[in-house]
């Protein structure tokens, strides 16, 4: 929030640390080999950060946000395979289409709150899932889309970077991640972001201060959808395909879990930490134990019951009780 004395620098210290850590990741011994894992962490961090605009800052429990990630993912795939084999155009379209659908859904849900809001977002994301699953001509149905290659980017005549090389793609995604993180930081620390927080704290009073809260909620929903779509598009390029599972409601549950686990309700960077821990442990667990879902489910339960403010909430102690 705002304070009477200090101010929020637009790149504050933790952000530098995060960026540098990610920049050096590929060179860390042992773990640095898993480049694709690192890319996936970046993508999910972006997704979780955008989701936290809704959950942590506005207090809107959108439980169907995987839907926009999935829409972005499919859009990138469809545009690549049917329209233009490139990098930028599919990605830009993921952003726009993801944002468009978020805007449409936002119109439906902006007036709702609490559990009702959560229920409806779940149901709507399921619609998207079934459409992706069944509309064979467009989405490839159960088999999904494949063959979404990563092309090259660059300036013709000057230079060209082959994104098909994993480490190139990692830094490409990192660059986008840095840009988006700074953008999201600016958004939540803007007057707009303050209004979102007032809605979280006391929507009725916010109305009585003259804020058109429904419009703000809709805007937050849409903005969040734009970034989610981008994350989805980046994911499709990562795995070179798009499957219906990206729209599965468990994905929506995952992003909520990551955000909470890391401490998204008390810290801007919580979602990033949560994504990193979540993706890594999921990969580790599933490699060694077939029934890892059991542990995964129990972890959910554990976090909710015992560390609802997440890891950063634990570490921060009593200093920060709500997200500012």
């Amino acid at each position, binding site marked *: 929030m705002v304070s009477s004395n200090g101010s929020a620098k637009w790149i504050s210290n933790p952000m530098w640390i995060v960026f540098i850590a990610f920049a050096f990741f590929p060179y860390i011994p042992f773990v640095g080999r898993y480049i694709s894992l690192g890319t996936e962490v970046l993508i999910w961090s972006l997704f979780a950060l955008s989701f936290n605009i809704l959950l942590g800052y506005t207090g809107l429990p959108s439980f169907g946000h995987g839907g926009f990630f999935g829409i972005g993912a499919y859009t990138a795939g469809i545009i690549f395979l049917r329209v233009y084999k490139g990098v930028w155009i599919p990605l830009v379209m993921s952003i726009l289409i993801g944002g468009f659908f978020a805007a449409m859904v936002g119109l439906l849900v902006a007036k709702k709150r609490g559990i009702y809001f959560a229920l409806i977002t779940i*149901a709507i994301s399921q619609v998207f899932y079934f459409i992706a699953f069944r509309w064979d001509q467009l989405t490839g149905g159960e088999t999904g889309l494949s063959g979404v290659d990563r092309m090259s980017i660059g300036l013709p005549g000057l230079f060209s970077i082959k994104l098909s090389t994993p480490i190139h793609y990692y830094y490409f995604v990192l660059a986008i991640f840095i840009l988006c993180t700074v953008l999201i930081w600016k958004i939540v620390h803007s007057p707009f972001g303050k209004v979102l927080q007032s809605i979280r704290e006391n929507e009725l009073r916010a109305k009585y201060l003259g804020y058109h809260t429904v419009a703000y909620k809709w805007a937050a929903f849409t903005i969040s959808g734009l970034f989610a779509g981008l994350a989805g598009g980046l994911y499709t390029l990562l795995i070179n395909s798009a499957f219906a599972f990206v729209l599965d409601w468990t994905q929506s549950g995952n992003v909520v879990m990551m955000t909470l686990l890391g401490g998204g309700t008390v810290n801007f960077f919580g979602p990033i930490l949560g994504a990193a821990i979540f993706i890594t442990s999921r990969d580790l667990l599933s490699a060694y134990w077939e029934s890892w879902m059991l542990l995964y489910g129990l972890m959910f*339960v554990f976090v909710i019951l015992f560390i609802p403010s997440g890891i950063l909430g634990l570490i921060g102690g009593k200093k920060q009780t709500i997200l500012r």
Partner: protein
Amino acid sequence: MAEFLSFAMNGLVLGLIFAVVALGFTLIVGMMQVINFTHGVLFAFGAYFALSLQKYVGFGWALIFAPILVGLIGLILERLVIRRTYGGNPLFGLLLTFGLAMALEEVIRIVWGKPGYSVAAPKFLAGSIDMGFMFYSKYRLFLASLAIFIILLVWLFLEKTTYGAIIKAGASDSEMVMALGKNLPRIRMFVFTIGTILAGVAGVIAAPIWSVRPSMGTSILMPAFVIVVLGGVGSFWGSILAGLIVGMSTSISIMFWARISDIIPFVLMAVILLFRPRGLMGEKSVLEV
């Protein structure tokens, strides 16, 4: 024509199963403001328990014991875990049950294995019966009658008993119930158990006509969400009505265009929400806060 009737009857039967499940779900939502994600997997447990019990004690007893076992699980969940989320952010209750559902589904896989089973209807209910205007599966008729009977039981309980009245009151104003000196935690435990028993019963009777797989819980949970939103959160008749609508339309749509039958419930929901945001019979509930 006969084909249509057959689909329609199937839709009715499906709708009744949905209604029983949705009823349990909406009772829990109304009473505790908890979206019970485990409702689906408990439905599955009902079917699986019936599967196992049937070998030893026959279908009749399985019909009685399986739901009780499910209710026991529900009771334990409520007592140990779920009740810690009351009064807090509703999202936590949702996430908690979400995690529990995932873990429980995996338990099914571990105990009963991954592939599906088919459960045969008991012999005395096998085959079809001549209803005059059509032949129809004896078992499905039995299922339908049982579902109706259960719904009536629940209705009688809520309407005609004092405990039921307290529960109805608690669903809209829990503070009042506490102020009257009633033991709210115990009531909630009771409601949750009943809700889960309903899910379990539905699972048992649906087993012969449903494909019994570990993921069968999800296949009923999603429609349950839709039905509760469609019928109006917390509304008894809303759930019943919406359950029947969803069941019927799903079944009939299979007849015309099977591919979209999954989406029908959601389309219905979207349409209703556009014109009646609280669902068919919903009232302003605590969930809207």
